[in-house]
């Protein structure tokens, strides 16, 4: 049945205005037989309002999507969606989307654009990139990518490599690097860990925002419900350690307030009790871990083990004075954690992204190892990957080879950030110090540094020095405002894209996003296609690295690897059939998870879980050799306080807060709201209207302050106050909140946009604006939890 758009409107008209009869239920369908039938169809997609990767069932009437539900059997969300997922259509239908390619007309940032055609836009980029290559300067191209999903990350990396630039800053886990670095140093894994909610009995959360953010959000929301009442007769327990009384804390069985930045110490204090009381999993530790006890190296030198260190330095008494957590509480948690098995300890950004985040994360990982909860039913799981087929090798010509060997502009990989994958916050200093070469062209994909980086103003200084900026964003965000050319991507309803799922299940799975509409709502193009197109236009080895017609074809090739294994949820005779079913199901997964593959999965020098990180030791020695500097010198540059064996063991480093306590008496801690994700969400009125339910806040942002603190300062609920740090100040509405730590000012993330459409713009404040840039050098990231502030009435 073909009904065109006009008729559709007629139909809505009929269903809404055409009735005068009073008795019948007029709010519902017209009476049977009386209503004009409409064409309804359901398709699948993958949500991208946050990195959760939930499967979508999309209800469309005629052409238009009208409602989103979850895919019933999709493992990550089991047919459910969170509020952001539900409001997804407001992304698609956002009236302020970029509807066609734009070229800057006026001054930068002025918002004066000229509509151009795709041909013209692509021409502009290609010409520029070709010239750069001809001049032998492909390394003057920088790509800043953010929320990469699925093969988009590989595609972009491939492009940069084939083109010949080392300046690919594309870290999809920007903002949680510390967690990954911790896992890397203890287990040698490069993924987040999954939680086996189906079996876990005791969840010890070090500031994981399980019910508001975390990853993957929906899986954790479900997990909470399941922990509570999913298994007849078994009622799991959840303990939330956090300075602030968050929604998660309120829903947990126990909330443990803690001094900010001291979680590592607490974890070690808990370890102390477990070791002292010999409640650890001896067989696991014996067979699958390294460095628990003191050990001798090949030279016969004795090294300190985890046990020795913990027993020496982290008695409950010592820990209690550091963390503010009473000794009895530490002992009780330790006792419960080691007896209510399976139990797990998990973290979030509030722990892993501190200046001591890497060590804190290592300490928490060690708790899991102590009770044998890794890769074990009810424990944390090591993510398995789908068996994608590898794309053909990247072709590099001489130009590429040469420029790829140039040092990166952001300094990642060099001292003092030897282990960083990227470090965009460091660009300004590097440029100011006078790096060897300038940036000529910047490509921006799915990231908005002018909003999401701490102290974004510094990034503006970087941007101002770049002659040509291309943004692929479908939205006029802060950074896109500063670009010279916009080549708009479609929204996640309008493109082909695969979507890896943030580790949440352990077993391999991926989602497939296919266009819901027969053609994009506006004149937009999938950035994947555009990149392939540009590569081909550049030609040579660059073009040859992209042997596909478009991104869909590239995806098909990758999924062939899965097709041939004939396992998991989608199996078919031929590939066309496979692809079709894949689209219908919204993805593929193989729910078999082989527990206990420690030997295969711990990718460390010892092949074991490392209490004593040989991974780190080797890497640091390597750095020392490369830089011809002594270890101690390197540690000094990396601002690591410990020396000797302790460096390689999880230990407590004092967090570095910026701002003198006298002048700036409060810690500034931000947190994420369920209703927004990273820089996104504020452009959706549905989400604005339910923003912060705990304080009944909508359409605005606020500063949480402890009632007693507020009283002392004469601040009343609703007063406007200034929050000032070393780098700037923000004016905001004070909300007196008993859940606020007395020494902390809490500001939620989500608002404070200076662009991003009519609903987001000019509303509330963005705590990033006053964050200082202090680093965890070991982890190689900027810590957003290192700022001290003062507050006073506005």
């Amino acid at each position, binding site marked *: 049945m073909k009904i065109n758009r006009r008729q559709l409107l007629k*139909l*809505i008209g009929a*269903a*809404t205005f055409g*009735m005068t009869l*009073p008795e019948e239920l*007029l*709010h*519902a*369908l017209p009476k049977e037989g009386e209503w004009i039938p409409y064409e309804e169809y359901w398709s699948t997609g993958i949500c991208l309002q946050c990195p959760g990767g939930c499967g979508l069932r999309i209800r469309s*009437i005629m052409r*238009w999507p*009208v*409602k989103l539900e*979850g895919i019933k059997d999709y493992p990550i969300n089991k047919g*459910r*969606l*969170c*509020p952001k*997922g*539900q*409001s997804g259509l*407001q992304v*698609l*239908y956002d*009236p302020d989307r970029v509807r066609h390619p734009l070229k800057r007309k006026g001054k930068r940032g002025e918002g004066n654009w000229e509509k151009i055609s795709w041909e013209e836009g692509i021409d502009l980029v290609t010409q520029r990139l070709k010239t750069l290559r001809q001049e032998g300067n492909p390394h003057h191209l920088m790509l800043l990518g953010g929320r990469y999903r699925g093969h988009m990350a590989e595609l972009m990396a491939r492009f940069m490599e084939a083109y010949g630039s080392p300046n690919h800053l594309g870290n999809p886990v920007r903002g949680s690097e510390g967690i990954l670095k911790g896992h890397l140093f203890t287990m040698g894994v490069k993924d987040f860990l999954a939680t086996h909610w189906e079996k876990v009995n005791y969840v010890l959360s070090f500031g994981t925002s399980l*019910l508001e953010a975390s990853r993957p959000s*929906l899986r954790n*929301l*479900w997990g*909470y*419900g*399941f922990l*509570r009442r999913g298994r007849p007769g078994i009622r799991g327990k959840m303990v939330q350690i956090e300075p602030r*009384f968050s*929604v998660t804390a*309120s*829903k947990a069985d126990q909330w443990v*307030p803690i001094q900010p930045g001291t979680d590592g110490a607490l974890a070690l204090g808990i370890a102390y009790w477990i070791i002292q009381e010999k409640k650890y999993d001896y067989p696991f530790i014996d067979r699958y871990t390294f460095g628990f006890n003191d050990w001798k190296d090949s030279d016969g030198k004795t090294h300190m083990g985890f046990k020795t260190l913990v027993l020496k330095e982290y008695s409950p008494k010592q820990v209690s004075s550091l963390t503010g957590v009473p000794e009895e509480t530490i002992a009780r948690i330790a006792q419960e954690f080691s007896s209510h098995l399976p139990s797990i300890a998990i973290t979030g950004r509030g722990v892993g992204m501190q200046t001591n985040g890497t060590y804190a994360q290592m300490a928490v990982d060690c708790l899991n190892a102590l009770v044998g909860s890794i890769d074990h039913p009810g424990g944390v799981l090591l993510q398995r990957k789908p068996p994608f087929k590898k794309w053909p090798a990247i072709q590099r010509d001489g130009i590429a080879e040469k420029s790829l060997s140039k040092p990166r502009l952001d300094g990642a990989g060099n001292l003092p950030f030897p282990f960083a994958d990227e470090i965009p916050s460091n660009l300004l200093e590097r440029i100011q110090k006078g790096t060897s070469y300038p940036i000529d062209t910047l490509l921006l994909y799915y990231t908005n540094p002018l909003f999401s980086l701490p102290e974004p103003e510094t990034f503006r200084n970087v941007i101002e020095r770049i002659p040509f900026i291309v943004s692929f964003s479908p939205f006029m965000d802060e950074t896109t405002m500063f670009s010279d050319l916009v080549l708009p991507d479609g929204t996640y309803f309008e493109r082909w894209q695969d979507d890896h799922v943030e580790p949440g299940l352990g077993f391999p799975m991926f989602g497939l996003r296919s266009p819901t509409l027969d053609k994009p709502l506006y004149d937009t193009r999938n950035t994947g296609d555009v990149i392939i197109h540009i590569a081909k236009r550049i030609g040579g080895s660059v073009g040859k690295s992209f042997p596909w017609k478009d991104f869909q074809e590239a995806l098909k090739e990758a999924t062939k690897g899965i097709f041939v294994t004939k396992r998991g949820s989608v199996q078919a005779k031929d590939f066309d059939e496979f692809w079709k079913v894949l689209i219908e199901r919204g993805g593929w997964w193989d729910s078999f998870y082989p527990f206990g593959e420690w030997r295969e999965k711990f990718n460390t020098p010892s092949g074991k879980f490392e209490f004593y990180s040989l991974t780190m030791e080797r890497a640091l020695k390597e750095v020392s050799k490369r830089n011809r500097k002594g270890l101690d010198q390197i540690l000094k540059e990396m601002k690591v306080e410990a020396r000797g064996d302790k460096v390689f063991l999880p230990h407590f480093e004092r967090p570095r807060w910026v701002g003198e306590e006298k002048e700036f008496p409060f810690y500034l801690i931000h947190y994420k709201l*369920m209703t927004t994700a990273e820089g996104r969400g504020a452009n959706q*009125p*549905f989400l*604005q209207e*339910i923003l912060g*339910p705990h*304080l*009944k806040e*909508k*359409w*605005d942002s606020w500063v949480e302050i*402890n*009632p*007693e603190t507020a009283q002392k300062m004469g601040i009343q609920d609703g007063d406007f106050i200034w929050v000032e740090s070393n780098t700037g100040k923000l004016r905001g509405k004070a909300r007196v*909140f*008993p*859940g*606020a*730590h*007395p020494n902390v000012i809490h500001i939620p993330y989500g608002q404070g946009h200076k662009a991003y459409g009519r609903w987001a713009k000019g*509303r509330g404040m963005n705590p990033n604006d006053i964050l200082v840039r202090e680093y965890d050098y070991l982890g190689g990231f900027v810590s957003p939890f290192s700022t001290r502030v003062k507050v006073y009435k506005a």
Partner: protein
Amino acid sequence: MYRWGMVIDLDKCTGCQACVIACRQENNVSFAGEKESKLGRAKFWMNLVSEVKGNYPDVEMRFIPIPCMHCDRPPCTIVCPVAATYKNPEGIVAQVYPRCIGVRMCISNCPYSVRYFNWYEPTWPEEYKKGFNPDVYQRRKGITEKCNFCIQRIRKAKEKAKREKRRIREGEVIPACVETCPSEAIYFGDLNDSKSQVSKLSKSRRAFRLLEEMGTEPKVYYLKEGEWNGG
């Protein structure tokens, strides 16, 4: 005869508000905007209400999702001078939009404050209108609206069951809020069917209803461990 009812498990609910948005998208409930929201004019057929009490570190925070209770003895219907709201034979307290003249007596007499008035003509950006659910009546200014247990979904299920000459099965009718709840905290079904999940849960030890003492006989049950003293 069916008797539709809902159970919300507060031990599972995370206060995420997915139900709130799902309901809005399903039922074409417009957003109010900043100014109107501050006047309390935002419409939430499903409303997550909260309460914070105590002093650091003894703080208490509570969330309750509140749809219309579909009272068996609804105080709202009897006061309507034009019978624009009434209890249908299946127990749903329905609202006949075209008949409502907007006196709002039903609103002031609903002890649960779950009826919402259209203070202005509901407005949407042109683009959003593409996403309207055609099964749901478009309201206008000056009338009252509220949760109707997604009656359009019930009706669809009923038509299907009728075509197939059978009763609606357990789990066949799923309101939008129930369908989306990430922690599976909301249940919906036929209270007359003693085998249905809702009727079993409604008899659970943990079950209670809001303002039970008022004798309104709500058909929305809540589950909560221990003493509930949140009113």
